[in-house]
């Protein structure tokens, strides 16, 4: 049962079909599966529903899949950085479902953990609550949100071993761990494949059970807002 694949194209082979649902990890451009997004584009698969907190920028990340019109629908919390997204949406070419960011994160976790629904206070009294079941607990009102699953999850981690154990780095962790649990198949790209036994077993973020295929990728890691301070001069 070999999990390590030679490249992104090979890792997606046999996994894609028109109309599929794909979860894509990352927050903004941080911790996104750059290589697998490109490989997904190159499969030519159409009418994808993409679950991702953001939609990339025009010339990076999920922006590539928008350019090629492969995305039918986005489930996201914020899409403000992408002009092509705006154009397609306003032209009625793209469906969009907004979720509050924490609700989206929890829906992915729930989907991976066998929880079909949970109640949250987030969004009560807003458009998000419209049409959703309301229920009171201890005198407060909550709404029902459902678990999310995907035909395929594409995930970016820092390190993997051959069993698929994963470690993420700093804030590049974000949505990746939950999405890894919620894909029928989860394919992961990493910066480094490390020898089995070299990870601290107390510090593995995603156990290998959630990972079916792994590749080592090449990562540009583009920065959206390079914000710096001046070094005080002596």
């Amino acid at each position, binding site marked *: 049962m070999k999990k390590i694949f030679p490249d992104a194209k090979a890792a997606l082979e046999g996994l894609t079909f028109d109309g599929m649902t794909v979860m894509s990890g990352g*927050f*903004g*451009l*941080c*911790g996104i599966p750059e290589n697998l997004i490109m490989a997904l584009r190159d499969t030519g698969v159409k009418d994808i529903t993409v679950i991702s*907190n953001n939609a990339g920028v025009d010339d990076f990340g999920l922006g590539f899949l928008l350019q090629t019109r492969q995305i039918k629908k986005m489930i*996201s*919390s*914020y*899409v*403000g*950085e992408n002009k092509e997204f*705006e154009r397609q*949406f*306003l032209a009625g070419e793209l469906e969009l479902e*907004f979720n*509050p*960011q*924490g*609700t989206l*994160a*929890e829906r*992915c*976790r729930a989907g991976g953990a066998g929880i079909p629904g949970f109640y*949250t*206070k*987030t*969004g*009560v*009294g*807003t*458009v*998000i609550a419209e049409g959703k079941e309301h229920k009171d607990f201890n005198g407060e009102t909550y709404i029902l949100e459902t678990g999310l699953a995907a035909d395929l999850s594409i995930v970016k981690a*820092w390190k993997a071993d051959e069993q698929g154990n994963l470690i*993420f*780095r*700093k*804030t*590049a*962790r*974000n*949505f*990746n*761990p*939950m999405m890894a649990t919620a894909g029928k198949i989860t394919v992961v790209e990493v910066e480094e494949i490390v020898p089995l036994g070299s990870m601290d077993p107390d510090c593995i*973020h995603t156990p290998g059970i959630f990972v079916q295929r792994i590749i080592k990728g090449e990562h540009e*890691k*583009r*920065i*959206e*807002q*390079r*914000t*710096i*301070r*001046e*070094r005080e001069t002596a």
Partner: protein
Amino acid sequence: MPWDRNDMARRAAQELEDGFYVNLGIGIPTLVANYIGEDIDVTLQSENGMLGMGPFPYDDEVDADLINAGKQTITELRRTSYFSSADSFGMIRGGHIDLSVLGAMEVSEKGDLANWMIPGKMVKGMGGAMDLVAGVKRVVVVMDHASKAGDPKLLHECSLPLTGQQVVDMVITNLGVFEIDRGKGMKLTELAPGVTLDDVKAQTQATFEAAV
């Protein structure tokens, strides 16, 4: 002389207490970090998955894997921990964050907040704002008292789609400070230097008690 952006941030910083865990929104709220008293220990949360957010990096410290919720590059501290966005919003939703400082388009006298959507314009999304206002123990809004067109932003009822219902505890504007008893009503408790009660009344639609 009404307050400017930095004055408002400085005033908001006075709401922070020793040992607080705080989430700061984008814009003026980000400036609050510059005015945290040196006598108190405060930990900043970034909802993408970090506790213990440090300042912006020096040019040679920039790390693409280390950003805040505004997608800006930042640094870590000795106390920093990283976690998933699910754990991060568990922290927020579960009421573990003491204070959030956010910007707003409109606030109602009952504490309703609108800050994510203008009908007819392209909607960018609510990001984590709805989770923050629903979950954080105390929500402080910092915003200009009136819109650029001069329309009041403190209203009887919000006209824009809500981010949260009865969620705001305090509003700091360029004219002064309002405390809100969620669901009940608001009270003007401070005026910016040189600003009069009549100045405030002229630019406010919301009903408020004057306690200055």
